């Protein structure tokens, strides 16, 4: 099946800066794909190239199998919602919604019906006659969305549509957006820097940094099997713990030694010994008040109260590990005991920041 959208080896340079390098991406029909990355990673540039406002220096952009590099934005049949919404400030909400239909010369009766229906869906019926420049953020967002959805594009591009909204609105809209997408069956490319949004809404996530695509996979994959330090650190809240360690052979297996000289047997493996990073998620560290088998002691330096849970920052040698506990479990300066499970850890190569794949480390999947 031809993917709805495909990017092959796309490059883009601005002056001396390589904004996008060798990007390969495919979006299947009906899929919700998030393009996730920090500011400046090239995701907005990528979006601009897909929409047609920037020309790729190299590579191809294909929509439904056809190369569109040279096609003007108005002929690409793509829906785009800008980060600043770009609602037509001098037109009414009604005019905004019907704009795309007018451009397609849809008859008036049909237009009126479509506008009324879309307004109903997005809760805009009461403000249909308000002018664009008087709306609040949430209204603008819905108008921008409605204006694009009403022409039923097969590919929808959303550029950080929630970044101007507060947390409560975001939560609401996440659900609404997903419902609409599922109902209309559109393919969506959702650009964001918020990993919570990406994780909660996407079928697949593509993580980008510094112009390059680092990893593409389902939220599950990205979370449990990151392929690089950046991806591991970018996904997950609270962020993953990364501590330096030294890898050496001990008999038939590998042993990782951290600063506190705690040895962790990692099983068989073919990795070269030497300095590495060890990464483990806060949720994957078992915390007890008493000493147990293979536990290490640490002192609580900081308690983060995030409501239903507490995040403890535990000093462990020179490192500070974040762990998640129930509220009231421990207080400042208490000593707690941590148990690290080798099966839940990731080994990261120092130079390449690449996560060593499971089987090579010989640890249980």
């Amino acid at each position: 099946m031809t993917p709805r959208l495909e990017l092959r080896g796309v490059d883009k340079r601005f002056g001396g800066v390589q904004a996008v390098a060798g990007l390969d991406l495919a979006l299947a029909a009906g899929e919700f794909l998030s393009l996730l990355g920090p500011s400046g990673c090239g995701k907005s540039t990528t979006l601009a190239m897909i929409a047609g406002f920037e020309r790729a220096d190299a590579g191809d952009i294909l929509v439904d199998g056809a190369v569109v590099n040279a096609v003007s934005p108005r002929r690409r049949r793509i829906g785009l919602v800008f980060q600043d919404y770009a609602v037509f400030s001098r037109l009414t909400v009604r005019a905004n919604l019907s704009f795309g239909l007018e451009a397609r010369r849809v008859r008036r009766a049909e237009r009126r019906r479509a506008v009324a229906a879309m307004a109903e869906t997005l809760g805009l019926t009461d403000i249909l006659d308000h002018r664009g420049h008087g709306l609040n953020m949430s209204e603008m967002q819905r108008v921008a969305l409605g204006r694009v959805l009403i022409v039923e594009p097969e590919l929808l591009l959303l550029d950080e549509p929630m970044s101007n909204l507060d947390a409560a609105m975001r939560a609401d809209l996440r659900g609404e957006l997903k419902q609409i997408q599922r109902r209309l069956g559109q393919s969506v490319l959702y650009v964001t820097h918020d990993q919570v949004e990406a994780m909660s809404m996407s079928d697949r996530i593509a993580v980008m940094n510094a112009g390059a695509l680092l990893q593409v996979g389902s939220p599950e994959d990205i979370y449990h099997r990151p392929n690089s330090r950046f991806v591991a650190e970018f996904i997950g809240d609270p962020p993953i713990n990364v501590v330096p360690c030294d890898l050496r052979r001990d008999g038939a297996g590998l042993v990782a030694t951290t600063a506190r000289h705690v040895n962790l047997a990692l099983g068989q493996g073919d990795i070269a010994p030497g300095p590495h990073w060890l990464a483990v998620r806060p949720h994957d560290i078992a915390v007890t008040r008493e000493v147990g088998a293979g536990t290490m002691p640490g002192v609580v330096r900081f308690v983060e109260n995030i409501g239903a849970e507490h995040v403890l920052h535990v000093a462990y040698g020179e490192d500070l590990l974040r762990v998640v506990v129930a509220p009231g479990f421990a207080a400042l300066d208490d000593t707690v005991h941590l148990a690290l499970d080798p099966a839940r850890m990731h080994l990261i190569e120092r130079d390449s920041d690449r996560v060593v794949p499971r089987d090579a480390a010989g640890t249980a999947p």
Partner: protein
Amino acid sequence: MSERAHTRRDEDGAPARRWLPFNVALVLPAQLTVMAVVLVPTLIVLWLSITDWQPTVGVPWYRAEPIWFWNFYDLYYDERFMNAVWRTLFVVGVCVVVELVLAIGLALLFLDEWPWRKVAVSIVILPMMIVPVDAANAFFMLFNDRGPINHLIGAVIGRPFEYAWLADPSWALAPIMLAEIWQWTPLMFLLVLTGFMNMPANQVRAAQVLGASRSRIFFRIMLPLLTPVIVIALLIRSIETFKIFDPVYILTRGGPGASTETISMFMYNGAFVYFRFGYIAAAALLVLVVVVSICLALSRPLKRHHG
């Protein structure tokens, strides 16, 4: 920031009032200069307009005999004056509209980037950086009956063309209006271009993505966004064009006859050629009252923009 006058405190801390609030003292020089040059002449106009004072008669101006409203009555029935009024309105209407249309058309050509764009802008705005009298001078030579314009027309129509533009009552207004349009379209162009540059680009892009044709984007999105700038441009250019004098003086002096006499030229001729100061003062008063009230009424958009 406090709106009250800035007061200094003297040694023991009690506020010492200077004899004039600081902030008022600051505006005084400007205010006084303006009042001297505007207020005093206006009062004199008020006085002169009810007399028929002519400096050539020998009576000092303050001892001229009042003829009350007869000046205004005469003005109303003065065909030459009325013609000057309509003619000026005609010139304003045509020039300002043509300038605006040309400016918008030109600005649209400058919306994208190309290597020599900056140079092009610099050349295109050259006319507005010429002393108006010199521009009029140049046009005087251009429209000479043996000048390049006629030469070009002759080349196009195939036979010699030695038309005396400035001597023909029906056409003499054309070089004047062309000079005005030539000189000030670049200003409108700059204003409109600035308006385009300040426009939220994403709204235009959003319209493109929705598949709108170029003309739809222009008329439904860009023009409405440009409206504030257009209004300011029209207002300012209309006021300035109404006062038009330099090209008229240099090119025709209002002639042949009075066929190109605008309001300013009419008043200049009346005062400095015919020396009818009292009569012209009445005309000046009329013009002052009408122009200033229209300006004040129309300048509300300007006020709204300065918030």
